[in-house]
């Protein structure tokens, strides 16, 4: 009878699920759980290469950087994660402050220039990204662009700006602004952007797409998204504008990684981070995603301006860890829901 067959099927299913989870538990020595604040299309290919090279299975949970950080904070001692790959230094710093990141071994730390890693060795930068203003070349010319990021709060930019306030890179930039120009000025700037009806997109790619389409004239984003679009179509009517040196709009942030202190396979976790700092992964970041490779001895893509010209000397990436205040600020002014 159908019901009896159904029951039997159910038992078999339940059994399979149990066996499945048991097998999963068995495998855990050769499986790494990664929480990634970087999107799947940017990081998944290199993680697959790691699996091919080492045989270690990688299970990845994707989400926004702040979501993954909040999830890790909620999980605390119970977290199943081994490695956290974040889109910005701030989220890593926040976790380090809570004691949730383990110390990395010198093998790992010495592969990265110290200015792109944590001061006390709990995370390393994997790739660098410049904050830029991408603009539509049909709608605005270079000489019309603002000299400072702070000028975007001026009413002349009303209805012309796109940004991604839920994105980790933008949030790290706001944290940087708080450090560079102070809390009140940052709040005023955010309120100015909102008064200008800055259009909030879900992510950086959507911001750049909107600029290319002319939906908005300028967009706050990372430098490499446009290069991705240009690789598909060299004719896109958009260009990156780097705020002149010293402006708080110009800075290098990093996508980085750390090992969770609760990981039961820290050695394996470090192996993944070492792989991400290895030649294959670093050239991937340089050639395919158009970021700045951060491992010692790597050279940047020739399409990019030298990293030294963009870096903001007044900013230490380890100081970006107060992400919580930034998130509260964004929420209070109404930039995020």
């Amino acid at each position, binding site marked *: *009878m*159908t*019901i009896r067959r*159904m*029951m039997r*099927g*159910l038992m078999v*299913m*339940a059994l399979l*699920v149990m066996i*499945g*989870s048991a097998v999963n538990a068995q495998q855990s020595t050769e499986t790494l*759980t990664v*929480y990634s604040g970087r*999107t*799947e*299309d940017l990081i998944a290919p290199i993680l697959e290469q790691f699996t091919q090279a080492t045989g270690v299975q990688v*299970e*990845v*949970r*994707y*989400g*926004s950087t*702040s*979501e993954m*950080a*909040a999830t890790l*904070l*909620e*999980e605390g001692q*119970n977290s*199943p994660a081994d490695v956290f790959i974040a889109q910005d230094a701030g989220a890593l710093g*926040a976790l380090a402050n809570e004691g949730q990141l383990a110390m990395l071994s010198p093998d790992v730390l010495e592969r990265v220039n110290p200015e792109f890693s944590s001061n006390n060795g709990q995370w390393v930068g994997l790739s660098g990204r410049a904050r830029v203003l991408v603009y539509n070349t049909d709608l605005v010319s270079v000489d019309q662009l603002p000299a400072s990021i702070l000028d975007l709060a001026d009413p002349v930019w009303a209805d012309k700006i796109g940004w991604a306030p*839920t994105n980790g890179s933008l949030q790290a930039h706001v944290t940087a602004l708080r450090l560079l120009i102070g809390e009140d000025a940052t709040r005023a700037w955010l309120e100015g952007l909102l008064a200008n009806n800055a259009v*909030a997109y*879900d*992510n950086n*790619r*959507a911001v750049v*797409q909107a600029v290319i*389409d*002319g*939906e908005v004239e300028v967009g706050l984003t990372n430098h490499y998204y446009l290069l991705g679009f240009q690789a598909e179509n060299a004719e896109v009517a958009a260009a990156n504008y780097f705020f002149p040196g010293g402006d708080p709009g110009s800075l290098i942030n990093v996508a980085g990684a750390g090992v969770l202190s609760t990981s039961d396979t820290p050695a394996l976790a470090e192996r993944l981070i070492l792989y991400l700092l290895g030649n294959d992964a670093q050239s991937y970041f340089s050639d395919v995603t158009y970021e700045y490779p951060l491992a010692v001895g790597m050279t940047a893509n020739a399409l990019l301006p030298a990293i030294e010209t963009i870096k903001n000397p007044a900013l230490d990436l380890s100081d970006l860890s107060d*992400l*919580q205040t930034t*998130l*509260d600020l*964004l*929420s*209070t002014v*109404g930039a*995020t*829901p």
Partner: protein
Amino acid sequence: MSEIRLFSAFRTATMQQAYNPRFGALRIWRGVAGLKLLTVLIGLIVLLPIAYMVVRALGAGTDGLAYVFSARTLGVLVNSLMLMVAVVIGAVVIGVPFAWLTTRSDLPLRRFWLIGGMMIMVIPSYIGAMMMIAAFGPRGMLQQMLEPLGVDRLPTIYGFFGAWCVLTLYCVPYIVLPVRAALRHCDPALEEAARSLGVRGSAVFWRITLPTLRPAIGAGSLLTALYTLSDFGAVSLMRYDAFTRVIYAQYTNSFDRSRAALLALMLIVLTIALLLIERRTLSRRRIYRTSIGTQRQSRIVALKRWKVPALAFCALLVGIGAVTPLVILTHWVLRGVEMGIDLESLSIETVNTAGVSIIAALLIGVLSLAPALLAFRSNTRVNQWLVGVTYLGNGLPSIVIALALVFFASNATPALYQTMPILILGYIIRFLPIGVGSTRSALMGLSPRYEEVGRTLGFHRWALVRRITIPLARSGIVAGVALTFLSVMKELPTTLLLAPTGFKTLPVEIWMANSDGRFAAVGAPTLLLIAVGALSLSLMFRDKRG
């Protein structure tokens, strides 16, 4: 064979009963205590995570209180309520004429418009919203068509207007279905009497027809209101700060998750208030209900000069609600094929989706037996409450249930956190009502005599249930399982929050592909889901007729 044995035994039993009135009924209820215990257990499974979240929300203390009464939170409350009222009004204003036109008028192609209108139901709201944005966004397909005319952008669709449009459109069927049923069953004699008393033309509709439709409109409005409050996809995509969107944003964009819990708690209170209203109107509705005096069909009204506007109205509704999404999706699929989309990766997600849906649906099928049997055998006031608890998932938004389980599992049962069982539990809490409802209505059609007969054949307790009750209610149980299967397949927020690391279903893939701007990858899985939805709809209709 067994049916014949059953039948002859049935006769014997009724004869015996005639001689001994005390036989049967009293002894049959002996299994109730066990059923009660099982129902209480199931109710606890449903309640525990939610209770945990409530405790967590209350733990926020004075900070939490300040957050609840902050201007932004009250703004969210106002947003949600405004949207709810506007969607109800919009859906009624569109739904009632549509229902009337497709039942009572001489509108050409009535059946076609009806099916077209119901097609809207098949499309999950998040897909509907994606399609609306693709079609009517500032630089959407409509704008591209108008480009030669010098239109280089359309006014923004995001915000209240977009959310209102999508939800109104997708809630119209909730009004059309009950109103159509009422229109078909109400007594034409009333309208005839009115005409004979000199009421003319449209006045008949306003003074007689509409008042008799009030209970149906009320019921549909409450469904619409509940749906609007619980919808996550449409308000998120339209960037309208209603509860569900802000809960998710607080979840993903804040280190202080007690705020998400507080918002969820507010939404629970709002939902329960609505459900209580529904209960009251449902019990009051019986007073108003008119008896079916005659079996005659009501008069078909000639539209005359209104025929063209009526056709335009129906064409607009079906065109925007059903045709536009299908055209865009087909376009995307073709673009995907052109770009050589990776169908192999999609197959993993299809298997995942089908797999969890089957497991969840079967478990729900089994779990719904106890509450349904309890309601069937002993519908006392206490038992009604017990069974009512298992219906909680019906009113609570998925995102609230999922959030509750995140809190519960990561703190109370870390070993189960982010595992398949917790995801399945999320589905069970959310969709158990479908199973219980379906099984229960199947049981309600059974005469208690069958179980009494079973007892005379020597079956006790579980044997009785297994050999007599379940086989007789089989079609209803199977329909419930099928319906839950299809609902789980389409579910987005629960999967988004609770899926084990690395586990993706079709809705999640659609959601992620859309937010990454990979539109070509959205088409194929979406069409697949819509086909599934169509199947679920046809099942639902069969269920209603049965």
